[in-house]
């Protein structure tokens, strides 16, 4: 698919909107949904919806840009421990990008969401294990794995809905409508 200038400009506008939405959603989630689970380090991660959307519909590199926006937001809004947020965010988006590249046709929105959530949560727990020098942190791992599947499926489904209804008016939607 050849990207025209207007499509590129449209994509950049969409990514800018997604960046703003990530900041707002992250702030809302930190304020109202931070205690949704009683497991340390596990969050719903609704902002991941937009990262999945960008990876699937726009360009893989925009996934990284959005992940960096989220990491910076977490520093200012939630003053999260930087190492957890940074490594979790970067490894999570990398895993989603790799999965999308390798299995583009075979993997859907929910699959990408589950992989992202799984890698993020596992990374956080591995860092906690290393920094706290205690294997006791892994007691929560079964619940964390279960929640990764659940939360990944939720964010993936939301990204699918955004795509299906072409909420951000991406160019390909118009082509599909013509067909």
């Amino acid at each position, binding site marked *: 698919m050849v990207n025209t200038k207007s499509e590129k400009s449209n994509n950049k506008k969409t990514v800018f909107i997604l960046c703003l939405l990530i900041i707002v959603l992250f702030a809302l989630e930190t304020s109202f949904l931070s205690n949704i689970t009683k497991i340390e380090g596990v969050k719903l991660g609704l902002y991941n919806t937009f990262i999945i959307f960008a990876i699937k519909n726009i360009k893989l590199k925009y996934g990284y840009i959005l992940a960096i926006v989220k990491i910076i937001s977490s520093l200012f809004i939630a003053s999260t421990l930087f190492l957890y947020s940074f490594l979790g965010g970067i490894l999570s988006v990398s895993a989603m990008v790799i999965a999308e590249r390798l299995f583009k046709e075979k993997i859907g929105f929910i699959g990408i969401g589950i992989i992202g959530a799984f890698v993020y949560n596992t990374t956080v727990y591995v860092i906690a294990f290393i920094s706290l020098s205690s294997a006791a942190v892994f007691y929560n791992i079964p619940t964390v*794995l279960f929640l990764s599947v659940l939360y990944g499926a939720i964010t993936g489904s939301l990204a699918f809905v955004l795509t299906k209804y072409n909420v951000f008016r991406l160019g390909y939607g118009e082509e599909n409508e013509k067909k």
Partner: protein
Amino acid sequence: MGVSILVIALIISFVLWMQPFEGQLYACVYIDGEFIEGEPLQTTLNQIDIKTQYGTNVLVILNNRAYVKDTNCGYAQCVNKGYISRPTESIVCAPHGLVITIEDERSLKDK
């Protein structure tokens, strides 16, 4: 992918649940991986202030369960965690490098 993760989670849960324990249980406090103290789980109230170079956590033991009542770390995920009472269950406060885990007499003797 999702199904395999769920199966792994179930297997690990089963293994942890089957951990044998004997006698008195203790809430063991670790700071940066180093064992600090083991407080016996009891029915009467026992409040312990855990002060470290990073900050303070208030550990409470009551009705054979342990929980963190208060912290000044700013996240309070350890407070939100609630009670722990079974062996290998844990409460983690990453900003304070604190891990509280329930252990039995046998594993406490090895410290």
